[in-house]
């Protein structure tokens, strides 16, 4: 199973919307996300920065949250999406 990461910000409203969808996805499928808050934890922020080359091309050339990342395949999706899109992205990561 791919290593999936979710980068989020504590005061980001889009991230706040995505948490319950990630919870639901984890309940319904074997998918699991490691979740990292990046504005109040510099270690997490550095972890996200270390994936800049994979994230930026998919996120307007920036580091934005929420970002969903397959750390193995270096595939990323960012922004607030609906449940079906999140599920589709996560399941295709294998």
């Amino acid at each position, binding site marked *: 199973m791919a290593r999936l990461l979710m980068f989020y*910000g504590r*005061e980001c*409203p889009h991230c706040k919307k995505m948490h319950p969808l990630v919870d639901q996805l984890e309940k319904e499928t074997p998918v699991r996300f490691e979740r990292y808050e990046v*504005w109040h934890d510099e270690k997490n922020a550095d972890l996200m*920065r270390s994936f800049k080359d994979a994230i930026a091309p998919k996120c*307007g050339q920036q*580091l934005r*949250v929420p970002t969903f990342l397959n750390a193995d395949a270096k595939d990323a999706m960012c922004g607030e999406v609906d449940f079906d899109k999140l599920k589709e992205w996560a399941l295709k990561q294998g």
Partner: protein
Amino acid sequence: MTKRYWRCYVCNDIHYGVAPPEICPTCKVRQAYVEITSEEARKILAGGPEKALTPEGFRAAIEAFAGPNEFRVQPDKEKVDLLVSGVFENEKNHGLKYCPCRLRTKDWDEDLKLVCPCNFPAHETYRGLPGGECWCGLFVKKSD
């Protein structure tokens, strides 16, 4: 495009830009700006009266900023509350009012692009889209 510091010789307004304003926006004197060093600019600004911007003051500032433009502040108050708290948390912890929905790269020039309000009209989430928003959603395009 190198920005420099300029001082109005009449009222001591400080300008940071490629060229000085032709008319000083404060005292209205023409051709009043002389180039100064960053050190002088910092001293003049640091010596002035303390002007803390509270979250309420920031809200008023962004409302005034949006007013004449084609966008407005997000009508969802809960969202605005969360974003403004994030902007102030980031200023306290990281020095500037960085967008809570992006992340600093640690490159000073790059990270200036994340200071709220950012240049969101140029972004793909706003430009050319009916109902476009800045990335975090603090500003939304006014409907026709």
